């Protein structure tokens, strides 16, 4: 249990998707103009991450890893390594989960669906989602619980980051920014400063 909390805290603050790896920057920059829409997108991204990371973890461990097919084929599977297929299978699962989520949300909560409408399909090509699955594969988590904690932590970290920048940008509308920096330029620099402040979490040893 302690281990799961460690992974959650680490992926939320120390290895934050935006501030440490710049993943999901495109929608982060495009959508962060108001807090309300950013919170909606952030929750959707976190939700997709919580589902796709464990699903991809199971697929990776029971289909793709070297000799992972032993449970199905016995000893004959020892030489089979489908690792090179992981990109295409991960992206297919992400796209399928996003599609499924879109249909479920439309069916059961039409109000939320209308609010998120345009952002939902875009989540499929959000780098943070694909990136989390690839990091999960690289870091080789020990159980599906750890993978879920990592997915949840990454999602919450992304949500924090986008709400933070949206709140700053709402205030920034009243400031006198140098003309060539207006809009995207100043957002980059503020994100950089936020990333420096997040680096203070590096001192925490877990």
């Amino acid at each position, binding site marked *: 249990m302690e281990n799961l909390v460690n992974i959650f805290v680490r992926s939320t603050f120390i290895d934050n998707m935006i501030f440490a790896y710049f993943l999901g920057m495109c929608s982060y920059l495009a959508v962060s103009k108001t807090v309300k829409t950013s919170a909606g997108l952030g929750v959707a991204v976190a939700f997709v991450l919580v589902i796709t990371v464990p699903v991809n973890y199971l697929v990776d461990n029971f289909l793709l890893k070297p000799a992972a097919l032993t449970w199905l084929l016995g000893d004959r599977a020892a030489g089979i390594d489908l690792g090179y297929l992981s990109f*295409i299978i991960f992206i297919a699962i992400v*796209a399928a989960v996003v599609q499924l989520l879109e249909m479920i949300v439309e069916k059961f909560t039409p109000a939320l669906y209308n609010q998120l409408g345009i952002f939902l399909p875009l989540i499929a090509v959000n*780098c943070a989602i694909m990136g989390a699955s*690839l990091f999960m594969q*690289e870091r080789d988590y020990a159980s599906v619980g750890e993978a879920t904690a990592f997915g949840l932590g990454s999602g919450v970290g992304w949500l924090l980051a986008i709400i933070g920048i949206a709140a700053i940008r709402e205030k920034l509308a009243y400031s006198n920014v140098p003309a*060539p*920096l*207006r809009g*995207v330029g100043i957002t*980059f620099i503020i994100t950089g400063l936020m990333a420096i402040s997040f680096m203070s979490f590096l001192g925490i040893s877990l």
Partner: protein
Amino acid sequence: MTLFSSKNGQLLLGPLSKNNAILVQILGICSALAVTAKMEPALVMGISVTVVTALSSVLLSLIRDIVPTRVRIIVQLVIVSMLVIIIDQLLKAFAYDVSKQLSVFVGLIITNCIIMGRIEAFALANRPWPSLLDGIGNGLGYALILLIVAFFRELLGSGTLFGVPVIPDLFYRWGYSNNGLMILPPMALILVGIVIWVHRAKNKDLIEQQ
């Protein structure tokens, strides 16, 4: 239509500055910044993205009339991931060290917004040859920004370029030292912000209205 008319030249050269994917359209930042701590991975990443963008634009432009609109996203993802798998395997075979440094970011080329953006915005409405030029141009524009950011980060952060020391020993003896902050992730964001600032100060028409 000749192969190198001025219109086609514009497709190739426009994205290098006036229509740059990173600076102007704000696409493809996701996988861009993490690989810019050193010149070498930045160069490899730039070349890989250029190849994938160019080839995927051509392939999708060739089949644009036979793919139904409803399933086009899936078709695009499959073709792009196929190309990225090929690149990944090539890197693992011939440039293993760089491939280890780039780690997950090779896989993230699939979700690079530049590629999907150029396919959606250009290749699906144009013939293969202009699509190829457009893909190469946008890939090179992306590589250019990566190299500019990586140049400053490696020079100021490690005192090297492509791993070769360029700051003379004398400087270090006089008290110069490398700026460790440059290697850390936040400086990549701030440097891109500064590049955007300089670029927009030169091209006044790109400045955003308040």
